[in-house]
């Protein structure tokens, strides 16, 4: 029983870590741009495809790397590529909606998500079919009767270090101060000789690159990737960010752990849980928002006329 419990706990932490990587992007982008970047899930889900292409390229061009080494290199390449994609999208699309009502930007990013998905589907060879995605590592560590996949440890460790790095970046570097300044007040930040456009680009790069890692972990966990996986992952990441409180990093982590928790619990405890998991996840989302209208750690909004 204890072994089983440990497995479930581990599973919960892995899922929570993956969701956190996506939710952080939503929260960061909302905090800085005041906009919900609905295509964040789809942007992130482009990463596994870049990684797959990169693996082929790496192994084809006779670099003496195979297996895990090639995969890690591919993941790094996909992070950079997706971060860059985020910057390009900000420059191409999001910038035009800076002054527009929030609903416009929301619908535009939903459309952007469709465009990204369709681009993957049509441009990637046989993009409509599910593609097997190699596991980062299949090794396991045995602690008594508990089997711990090394992959799970990697996911958890990478997420924790990403979170720490992000906090350090935001709180202890010049860029971080600028990002927070722009998030606080764009106009005043300008007066302090900060260029908001540059900060937006940086924020997009960070959020997308972090999301890329999350997406790669997600598909590596599932073992397979399809062009439309980004919709569900994006929705879950968005929900996690919102129930935690948009704009709050801690909230995004908390929300992700909550959602991953209910996800794991349902799969254990409810008969036919796999098909009802989304019902429970989103019922939880509604319940949290009814009780805490601006998320668990969100600042209450004061109305001004």
């Amino acid at each position, binding site marked *: 029983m204890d072994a089983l419990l440990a497995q479930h706990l581990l599973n919960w932490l892995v899922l929570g870590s993956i969701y956190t990587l996506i939710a952080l992007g939503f929260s960061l982008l909302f905090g800085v741009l005041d906009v919900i970047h609905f295509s964040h899930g789809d942007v992130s889900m482009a990463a596994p495809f870049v990684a797959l292409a990169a693996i082929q390229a790496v192994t084809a061009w006779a670099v003496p790397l195979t297996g895990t080494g090639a995969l890690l290199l591919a993941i790094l390449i996909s992070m950079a590529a997706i971060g860059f994609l985020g910057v390009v999208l900000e420059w191409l699309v999001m910038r035009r909606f800076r002054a527009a009502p929030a609903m416009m930007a929301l619908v535009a990013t939903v459309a952007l998500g469709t*465009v990204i998905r369709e681009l993957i589907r*049509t441009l990637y060879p046989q993009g409509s079919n599910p593609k097997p995605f190699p596991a980062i590592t299949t090794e396991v560590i045995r602690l008594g009767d508990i089997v711990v996949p090394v992959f799970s440890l990697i996911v958890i460790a990478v997420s924790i270090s990403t979170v720490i790095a992000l906090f350090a970046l935001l709180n202890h570097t010049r860029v971080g101060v600028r990002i927070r300044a722009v998030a606080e007040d764009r106009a005043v930040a300008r007066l302090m000789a900060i260029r908001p456009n540059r900060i937006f680009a940086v924020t997009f790069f960070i959020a997308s690159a972090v999301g890329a890692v999350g997406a790669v972990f997600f598909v590596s966990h599932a073992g397979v990737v399809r062009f439309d996986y980004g919709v569900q992952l994006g929705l879950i990441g968005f929900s996690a960010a919102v129930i935690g409180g948009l704009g709050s990093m801690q909230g995004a982590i908390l929300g992700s752990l909550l959602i991953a928790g209910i996800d794991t619990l349902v799969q254990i405890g409810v008969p036919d849980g796999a098909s009802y998991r*989304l019902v429970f996840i989103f019922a939880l989302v509604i319940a949290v928002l*009814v009780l805490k209208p601006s998320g668990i750690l969100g600042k209450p909004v004061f109305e001004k006329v």
Partner: protein
Amino acid sequence: MADITQATPGLLNRNGASANLAIVAGVELGSAILLRAFLLSDETAVIVALLALMGAIFAALQLRPVLEERIVAAFHDRKRFATLLGIVIVLACPFFLQGSGYAFHLLIVSMLYAVLALALNFQLGSANIPNFATGASYGIGAYTSALLALNFGVSFWLTLPVAAVVATAFGFLLGFPSMRTKESYLALVTIAFGIVAHQLLNNFDWTGGPNGLVGIPAPELFGHSFARPIEAFGFRLPSQANFYYLSAALVGLSIVSAKRLHESRVGLAWNALRADPLAARCQGIDVVWYKMLAFGVDAFLAAFAGTIYAFYVSYISPDNFTFLVSVTIMTMVIVGGMDNTLGVIIGAFFLTMLPEKLRIFSDYRLLFVGVVVILFLILRPQGLFPQRARNYGGKR
């Protein structure tokens, strides 16, 4: 097709009632002919040319606002004639479609989406309440009526109001959280509601699971089954014509109620809410009630559309009512023009037909539609036809 009765006065030019008459007739017949040509064309070159023509017309309206004002003024001056001509065009339209089932199908689906977009417009357009669950209300309506018809043999005409009441009850339920949450948070509540509804429909046994419900019987009216063709005036219209007239009637009903609501205190209260909820509350507007009302009205109309859809295609599955359907409806409202009845209808027609007609681009059509929507939001963010000031009688 489009029944342009929304006109409010701009710069009214009183010289020549006949000129106004000509403008009204020209615009209505012109758009009807354009629509017919678009519906019946299946050659790539023709479709692209027609799209270019429409684009040119909108560009002209965009660059020369005077043109738009002139047309609006003419319509306002000849309101009754415009309405009558619109009705005649809608009634006569089936006789000019060469019995093409595909054209009928497109028109019916467009009209149902027009109703859905009008329903959402009460919320998104009038009151600026984001609602990503119109698709769910549409589905609840469709499933309620289909289940009643299949399990209890209830007639179509009876399921119509029942489905609407059930969906409205769910709509109010969904409206509850809106008492406290707002903006992105409220948007997420509605998204979550839509997903929960879709997942439940997908998993319950009594809704047929992912396979949905099959074999919904065709409605009957005075002994005439809707599955049979209409024979009138020596013409023989395909059976879809029944549903064409039914949906047209529903669109008419929606337009009338949208107009009446828009011009009533309710519409004004919604607009006040949109402008500033706190200021509205200070004016003595019951914010919570009007928000809930918007949810209820949306669900009510959406359920009508859902019922007709279920009986029209006689087969429904959860995949007809996903999150992406709600997003599509939302896009229609925004592209058409928030809180403008005509604009919303045109948005619905445009966004229903565009992907269908772009089948020539087969694999790339969704991509194309996405790009068009983004470009549209960048280039004309106020929508095709933005809201106009109300006019409570009296000519200027």
